[in-house]
């Protein structure tokens, strides 16, 4: 009995969340739901690379995958939405040669806002340049969102070189970019590109051509896009054309709209209770927002909400017991409330514990 790539990925994620979250937390993660809960969980369980990496997922598919893993003895169920890995499941996740997860460059959370824009613009750029150098005017743009078409017009206008050189430069940048890590397979991307003489492949066709499992291909495609974004933005002087595609699109992740409002009120000096009243929200909701802020805003001061000693005690407990379940931590530090524990975990969740 072999396990599909997709099932293996979900098994890996199930291990990460242990039995502390329901299977639907993974559904929200892959779909990319921008709620405080999902964002915090993503960081807490170090699944942020997978954020919004499979937005097409449905609840039915989620149920189906878990069902298959359960029936085949990889998962043991606690209740209908909570599972833990059986020994058989653990073995799969640990076997190094089966999968290495997450893919090295996958940064779903960090790049989810620019991923598809980057791809659409890059493929348009290649198509337009390719047709330009071959003086071929009659072609149908492969992506036709008006904002992208307007962008590309502008982008080309702003370039000063000759068109032959531009296409050449883009070629050189792509080659240089791909060559920085020899474990990257550029075919994953180039098969999808459209030029003057050929139309790119669809996701399914490319997977078939490379003889890859379709979900594996799907993640590898995101992986290579994130790789390119990472390389070109970190060395933008070396990759002016590629980093120019992203331009000044926001790369840092903004807070959810509601949290943003809460932050503004906090900055004006209101406390949790007052903000809840002003915004006609529950105090616990405002606390959720503050946890999200702790996660996202590095210089946000926690001292107003949790003392230094308390933070240290909570950290010690989590380190010693590797407990991540809030109730387990609270048993060991009964003076701390859940809000304090969550804040501490949010601030320290994304980093190594020891």
């Amino acid at each position, binding site marked *: 009995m072999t396990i599909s790539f997709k099932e293996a990925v979900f098994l890996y994620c199930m291990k990460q969340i242990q039995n502390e979250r329901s299977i639907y937390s993974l559904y929200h993660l892959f779909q990319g739901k921008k709620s405080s809960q999902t964002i915090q969980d993503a960081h807490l369980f170090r699944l942020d690379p997978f954020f919004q990496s499979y937005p097409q997922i449905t609840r039915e598919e989620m149920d189906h995958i878990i069902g298959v893993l359960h029936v085949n003895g990889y998962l043991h169920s606690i209740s209908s939405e909570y599972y833990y890995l059986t020994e058989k499941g653990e073995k799969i996740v640990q076997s190094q040669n089966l999968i290495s997860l997450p893919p090295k460059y996958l940064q779903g959370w960090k790049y989810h806002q620019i991923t598809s824009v980057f791809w659409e613009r890059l493929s348009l750029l*290649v198509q337009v*340049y*390719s047709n330009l*150098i*071959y*003086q*071929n*005017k*009659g*072609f*149908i*743009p*492969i*992506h*036709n969102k*008006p904002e992208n078409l307007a962008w590309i017009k502008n982008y080309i206008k702003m370039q000063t070189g000759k068109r*032959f050189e531009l*296409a*050449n430069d*883009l*070629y050189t940048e*792509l*080659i240089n970019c791909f060559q920085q890590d020899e474990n990257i*397979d*550029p*075919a994953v991307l*180039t*098969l999808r*590109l*459209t*030029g*003057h*003489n*050929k*139309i*790119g*492949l*669809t*996701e*399914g*066709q490319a997977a078939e*051509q490379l003889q890859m499992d379709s979900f594996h291909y799907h993640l590898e495609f995101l992986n290579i896009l994130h790789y390119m974004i990472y390389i070109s933005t970190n060395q933008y002087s070396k990759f002016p054309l590629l980093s120019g595609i992203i331009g000044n699109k926001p790369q840092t992740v903004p807070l959810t709209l509601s949290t943003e409002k809460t932050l503004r009120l906090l900055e004006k000096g209101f406390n949790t209770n007052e903000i809840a009243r002003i915004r006609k929200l529950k105090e616990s909701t405002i606390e959720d927002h503050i946890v999200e802020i702790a996660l996202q805003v590095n210089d946000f001061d926690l001292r107003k909400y949790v003392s230094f000693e308390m933070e240290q005690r909570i950290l010690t407990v989590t380190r010693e017991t590797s407990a991540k379940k809030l109730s387990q931590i609270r048993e060991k530090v009964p003076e701390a409330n859940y809000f304090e524990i969550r804040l501490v975990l949010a601030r320290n969740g994304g980093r190594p514990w020891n």
Partner: protein
Amino acid sequence: MELEKALYHYFQFTSFRQGQKEVVESILRGQNTLAMLPTGTGKSLCYQLPGYLLEGKVLIVSPLLSLMQDQVEQMKSMGEKRVIAINSFLSPAEKRKALSNLSSYKFIFVSPEMLGVDIILNKLREMTIALFVVDEAHCISQWGYDFRPDYLKIGEVREKLGAPLTIALTATATKEVREDIVKYLQFRSWEEFVFSVDRPEISIGIEILGHKEKQQKTLELVQKIKGPGIIYFSSKKLAESMAAKLRDQGERVMAYHGGLDTESRTLIQQQFIHNQLDIVCATSAFGMGINKDNVRFILHYHMPLQLEAYLQEIGRAGRDGKESIAILFYSPGDEQLSLQLTEGELPEKEQIHHLFMLIQQQNLKLENIHLESERFIPACGFSETQWRVVESFLASMQNENVQEVRDQLLNYVTKRIRLKQQKVYRVLDYIQHSGCKREYILDYFDDQGSSAKKNCCSSCGLALEDFYGSKAEEMEPNLRYNWKKDLASMLIKQVGDLHEKRPIS
């Protein structure tokens, strides 16, 4: 001769196709014109060329957003920049921008619901409309297979614009429908050009066979018959599974349907046009706005819902004028699926009641319903097609009384179902007709011109072997893919290619 010069100047064609010249001349004489030209004969040239020769704007009303988008893109790819589409695809900001720059465009495409918006109409009234184009004009008639109630308003809009010179275009309209077009557009004088829907280069085959044989027959036929070709299905699932089976058989084939994401849809269409695919297993979503000359066969795995659609679909074969074939497979009982599909296209009673309950509860104005589609579609469980019917019906109403409108809609839906069912039975009749199939179709459109020919149809005699052939192009041996080479072939101009294409001066 003058016209030919213009034709060459604007389109680089040296001669007109059948019918085009007469239609263009009629418009240039200042006559309102109704033209019925078969699919694939270059309808759009009939308004584009006079558009260029007339002083003022060309306003084109087009019912389908995807079709509109395709046409705009095609014109742009031909180098025409002064073209814009105003439809619900545009964001409010884009719409505002488009409207404030409207006078800088020559060709303005607009969806019928946008014509109901006052700001847009007023903007249009400020301009000189040299030519008013009603594309897919059969949508104006309730006898048409694709009736859109909001098309009924076009006549009124036309009056408001000062009754500009108008051309109504359609590929398939029976005599009744043509009469409706003239009536609703309020033509006082007009010229009518009805060109035969007959496409002599397309042979017509109907095969009646058992359910279980269908799949096997399809696999066999595709192996023998010369491509490229399109296979039409009524269900996405079957299109997918047949594509998979054909792929196993070594065919270059993809499935195409509305369930695919936009990127895949564009790629598959373009791959087919660029001969990277030989076969597309499609639902009726495929084919509109596709310009591919060398399609050699059309296979209907399921019966189409009306003869009008059938004619459009088989008309995608043989646009280069070369011998092609259209085959329809029918298994007894297939019409049940068609009848079900017909009903599914229209909103159900329960859905309508639920919608109007929500409208009454929330005290909404009927004229604003179309703005709330995102809310009502899931709330009432409408499919896109069903919602389009509701939306279009409401847009055509002026009545404020919610209850009355509801009852009218219910009544309307019942009538539409009956009409559509009649059309299904008409297709069935055609399939079972023992006489000449071509004559049957021509009769249906009150068309006289038919000519007996070799391989006319399965009733007159059809030698399928005549359409067999080696594969369109022998598949290249599956070389190892080299990404660097691929990238270079796209972005580095190869020296050997230099002489192939020179800039057109």
